[in-house]
């Protein structure tokens, strides 16, 4: 279900993205970041706003995976390949996740507990993991 977003949501999405490594959101140098934030929000197949990407969560976040949904342009990998790799590391629907640690620069990368394992990944790839 794709839905139109309001200007207000776009701005708040942009503000949230400022928490992160903003460079990760720039597809090509010089392109305004806010556009990407908007297009990412629009791409999301979320029915309810309470699902949020793990890539935006803070340290200490605990939750469950709702879906793996790779928005366009978040990683240099093709969407299907990134999805496959995330699943292979244990990121599947229903798995328990917790952000244990984050790096010092741009709070990136993050160390995530996935059920019984701990996986390190960058926030840009973690944007594909929708959590609740």
């Amino acid at each position, binding site marked *: 279900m794709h839905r139109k977003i309001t200007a207000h949501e776009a701005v708040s999405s942009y503000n949230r993205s400022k928490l992160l490594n903003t460079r990760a959101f720039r597809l090509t140098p010089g392109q305004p970041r806010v556009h990407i934030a908007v297009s990412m929000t629009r791409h999301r197949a979320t029915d309810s706003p309470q699902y949020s990407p793990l890539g935006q969560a803070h340290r200490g976040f605990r939750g469950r995976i709702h879906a*793996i949904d790779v928005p366009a342009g978040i*990683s*240099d*990998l093709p969407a*299907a*390949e*990134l*999805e*496959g*790799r*995330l*699943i*292979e*590391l*244990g990121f*599947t*629907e*229903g798995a328990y996740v917790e952000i*244990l*640690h*984050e*790096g*010092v*620069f*741009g709070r*990136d*990368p993050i*160390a995530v*507990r996935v*059920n*019984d*394992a*701990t*996986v*390190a*990944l*960058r926030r*840009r*790839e973690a944007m594909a993991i929708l959590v609740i």
Partner: protein
Amino acid sequence: MAANAEASERRFALIGTPNSGKTALFNALTGSRQKVANYPGVTVERKSGVLQTPSGRVVKLIDLPGTYSLRARSPDEEITRDVVLGRLVNEAVPDLLVFVADATNLRVALRLLIELRRLGRPLLLVLNMIDIARRRGIDIDIDRLSAELGVTVVTAAAVRRGGTDDLLRRLDALAAAAGERTPDVAWKAPSASELRAAQREADRIIQIALRPAAEPDTLTTRLDAVLLHPVAGLVILLAVLFIMFQAVFTWAQPAMNLISSGFDGLGDLVHDAIPAGLLQSFFQDGVINGVGSVIVFLPQILILFLFILLLEDLGYMARAAFLMDRIMGGAGLHGRAFIPLLSSFACAIPGIMATRVIDNPRDRLTTIIVAPLMTCSARIPVYTLIISAFIPDQKVWGLNLQGLVMFGLYAAGIASALGVSFLAKFLFWYDDPTPPFMLELPDYKLPRPQSVLIGLYTRAKIFLQRAGTTIFGMMVLIWFLASFPRPPVEATEPAIEYSLAAMIGHALVPVLAPLGFSWQINIALIPGMAAREVAVAALGTVYSIEGGKEAAEQIGHALASKWSLATALSVLVWYIFAPQCASTLAVIKRETGSWRWMAVTFSYMLALAYLASLVTYNIATVLGAG
């Protein structure tokens, strides 16, 4: 007869996810009866060993690179896939896949096992580290697990004495049974939904056959709270690296002196045993000194690998990569490139060998081509000689000027390595996707001495084999250049001045004169190709100084009277960049498996050296140092 023995030989392959303790199990099962080589055409290590079962049956065990999937995203994983599917030419499909899983972390492993099960090949699941799992209160119903998976399950604790007895008995029985060897060609990479289904199935089986620990490994959690702390973690990492760096330089010194004097003694022995002449020179200068100048680095290489193996077994290496990822990423390098680059301060050879920890081929290649820019210890004799001869021993802003210049040379090396890797990203891989950083952080484990020793032994063997072949060849070539043709009987100058090396030195004058290099310097550059520090001895020879290496001080005096400051600075800068060491180039050729990357490294370093020296010499001359 031979064909018969070949056919009846059992071949078992160890497969599993990374960090499942596969290598520890391999070491425990085969001991030192191992062979490490490369798979043909790729630089993926092919480890195999011989295992003897309780009833005396001999089984060939192959240790496959760890993988999360048969979809194969790196050369390592392609090898695993091709061996499992029997796709390698000259390599029969294994009779049995021994699937090694960490009993404390089964979720992802069972998904991979379910994927493998579909191949219909004989499978055995080994629950490794069962001792740790039990201690943590993880309760696994082995019979239930086996029934649900439809696979025989056996427990093991590779690092415990007697921890593999059960497994050996089971392998014995399986080795006795006849195996079928049909390569699987029908295999197709699973889609995302198939992967999901396999994981769901694995989760279901875990639900019924396993009672989880009450909480995750508390030791790992507590250690990580400090070691992965954004600030404390980095400080500790730097401290670890500092200790490692210190150890490589100080601990190795006595052993290096011993090797060095051993080779000198051997040289003297040859000197006395063989009448003066060509043969004496060949054995003393070409063979013994040449190979000795490389083998002298063996203690440094072993200490470095001791640290790498300990940190790797401990589970710290993945953490170091986590901490360094963003810092290295800025220069287009992978977090894991940090250790190899650091190792290159000792010597680029172990550094380049250590790039094997980087799984992505592109990242590994970038690291390999910039590693020689890090200031290796062989540059130190050259730097020390020139600095002490030309840079006044005085204080600038309270700091020793000579020390500052030395620091500057190191800093220039680091800056250029980062710059080149940044450029390489645009030149070679501008259209390649940036590989993601995704890495499992394993629980901390105490390294097992036997495993570490086997690892060290293997590294030493690889290094010595190389010293005995490629490097030896290079040394002989360089000796040849410096010795032929022979000086005339009435020669008054040092013999090297009549040699091919001298001819090349003179021929290079028009090219290198703009850098302020005299023909004597050009000559010294040629034996310096063997190993940089040899240039010091060569300069001694060219300037007719008795005593060679020992007379460094005298050489310094001679240089101070013959070179201008601009020339000295130009030579220093040349040594930051110049591809001066033939053995490094040989290792690059071996590790990348191609002449092309060796040529790329050689050319870009030469170009950098030339430009940097040209600029330095001319600026220095303009400033009045000519």
